[in-house]
């Protein structure tokens, strides 16, 4: 892998993170009222202190967080904080650090999302390939309509429908949460099984809602590839059908599918954030929802940066392994 390609990809990654961080820094400061200051005043006023005291507390806070310094100094400090993954402290749960709150929720989100996305991708791709394959059963063609419908539904709305029917009406699955209330999260089999049981429904709604997109995309790729000369050549050679299907048709159509997966990470994460809200699942999405309800600005901004960082990393990794999947791609460093 040429160094220039690696450096270019790394450069794009750093620019994305820098742009995200800068916008995250600027937007709240462009607002006519400083939301953080407002929130702090509000928090202090619940303490019943007098107006002068409030001002004093806010000033102390501002000195503490460097908010009374010139903008460029604040900006440099902000960037160095982000490099150290330090997003300050939560306003709603005061002494707790934002980073700690996010790190506690992150494993839940990552495991749910990775599992659901991989299952949906594999299943959808296979389904799409089979629908496009002229020799597979005609009954599969009737799946196109339902798949089309499913791909038009946002994940979390499908989740809402599933909760109602499978958890509320038929009581097959727990209504919400990531584990049975009262049990303490620890690393043993019974807790793991409990958590897995709770995650079936949220995962199922992500899988079901994204299945259509993958299947339809794969179907399109397959059909446009089936007319190619190499397929005719493989048939003329008398290769077994299974080999033509897997090694000629699917293999070639798989590459654009993988690119699509890398490109859709942002959409998948946004959708999953809301799925967690619907299911009260203890991941980053639910934390974000609570933070918005309690005006916990440091936590909101921390989660946004953290998720952008995570998505950037995933895209970077996929960009780097993509050429390994396709021998035809030559690394271009420009």
């Amino acid at each position, binding site marked *: 892998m040429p160094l220039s390609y690696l450096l270019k990809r790394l450069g794009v990654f750093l620019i994305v993170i820098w742009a995200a961080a800068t916008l995250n820094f600027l937007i709240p400061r462009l607002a006519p009222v400083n939301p953080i200051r407002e929130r702090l005043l509000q928090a202090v006023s619940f303490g019943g202190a007098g107006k002068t005291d409030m001002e004093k507390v806010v000033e102390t806070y501002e000195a503490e967080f460097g908010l009374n310094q010139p903008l460029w100094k604040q900006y440099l400090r902000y960037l160095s904080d982000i490099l150290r993954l330090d997003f300050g402290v939560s306003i709603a749960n005061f002494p707790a650090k934002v980073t700690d709150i996010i790190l506690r929720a992150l494993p839940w989100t990552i495991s749910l999302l990775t599992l659901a996305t991989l299952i949906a991708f594999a299943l959808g791709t296979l389904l799409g390939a089979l629908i496009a394959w002229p020799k597979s059963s005609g009954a599969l063609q009737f799946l196109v309509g339902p798949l089309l419908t499913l791909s*038009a*539904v946002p994940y979390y709305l499908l989740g809402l429908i599933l909760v109602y029917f499978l958890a509320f009406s038929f009581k097959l699955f727990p209504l919400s949460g990531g584990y049975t209330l009262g049990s303490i999260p620890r690393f043993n089999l019974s807790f793991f099984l409990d958590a897995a049981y709770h995650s079936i429904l949220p995962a199922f709604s992500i899988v079901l809602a994204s299945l259509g997109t993958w299947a339809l995309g794969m179907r399109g790729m397959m059909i446009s590839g089936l007319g190619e000369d190499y397929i005719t050549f493989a048939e003329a050679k008398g290769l077994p059908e299974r080999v033509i299907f897997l090694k000629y048709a699917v293999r070639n159509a798989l590459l654009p599918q993988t690119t699509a997966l890398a490109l859709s990470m942002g959409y998948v994460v946004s959708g999953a954030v809301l799925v967690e809200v619907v299911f009260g699942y203890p991941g980053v999405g639910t934390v974000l929802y609570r933070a*918005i309800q309690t005006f916990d600005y440091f936590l909101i901004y921390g989660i946004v940066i953290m998720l952008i960082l995570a998505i950037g990393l995933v895209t970077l990794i996929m960009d780097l392994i993509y050429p390994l999947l396709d021998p035809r791609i030559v690394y271009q460093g420009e």
Partner: protein
Amino acid sequence: MLKQLSHLRYHPFLLAGLLILGLILLIGPVGALFVDTDKAKVGSALPDMPPSSEYLLGTDTVGRELMAVIVAGTPKTLRIGLVAGAIGLGVGIILGFIAGYFGGLVDNIIKGTADVLLTVPGLLFLVVIATTIKGAVTVNMMALVVASLAWMWPTRTIRSQVLSLKERNFVLVARLSGMNGLEIIFRELTPNLLPYLAASFVTAVGSAILATIGLEALGLGPQNEPTLGMTIYWSLYYTSVLRGMWWWWGPPIIVIILTFMGLFLVTMGLDQIANPKLRRIV
């Protein structure tokens, strides 16, 4: 006109999509003839009533009549999508033409910015913007917020189309016959791009509506307006699912799903027109 409309039967996707969208667009004006939209206000009916002959779609926990909420909210949600989509397309046309036609450094800057912003999940940026202005959000402000990230895809698609068109012979002839850059853009390139522009507009409207409903479901929408997304938010807020109040979240979800299906079918139909090669595939 009639003759052109009759061509629609060769494009079943486009026809089906337009029919669905037409029905949804009619919910507001036609519904207002039969339903009093003032009943979408808090406290205008008995709370928690299931659908009955008096309350067709039932009422919610704070006494909004859901039939009135749908009739009043659907046009508001559509308006956010249309305004944001139009702004996104407008900005996309300007930037896409500039980048594609003039090339060079301008092209690199525009394409680079769009690419960087595309890799970031839009919803998260919108969360930051919407949190900052939270409290006094109106339907129009919501449209502006969503529009701020609706221009990248149109810019990208229009740019690449302009790139492929500008080397064609008819553009060369126009240039040789003394047309200047702007004339070529408006009189030669734009007419050829119309199907693409229409498809980008529909896509932009769809993603704007998706983003709006997502933001609203997180509680970042116009708190006092009965839009579809806010209805979802309140139904989650008052745990309507756990209380079996399907009439609260069901109707807005159906309208939302139908809207997305309609938009999706129209994009597919327009793609077929813009790109005859696809006719065989889809």
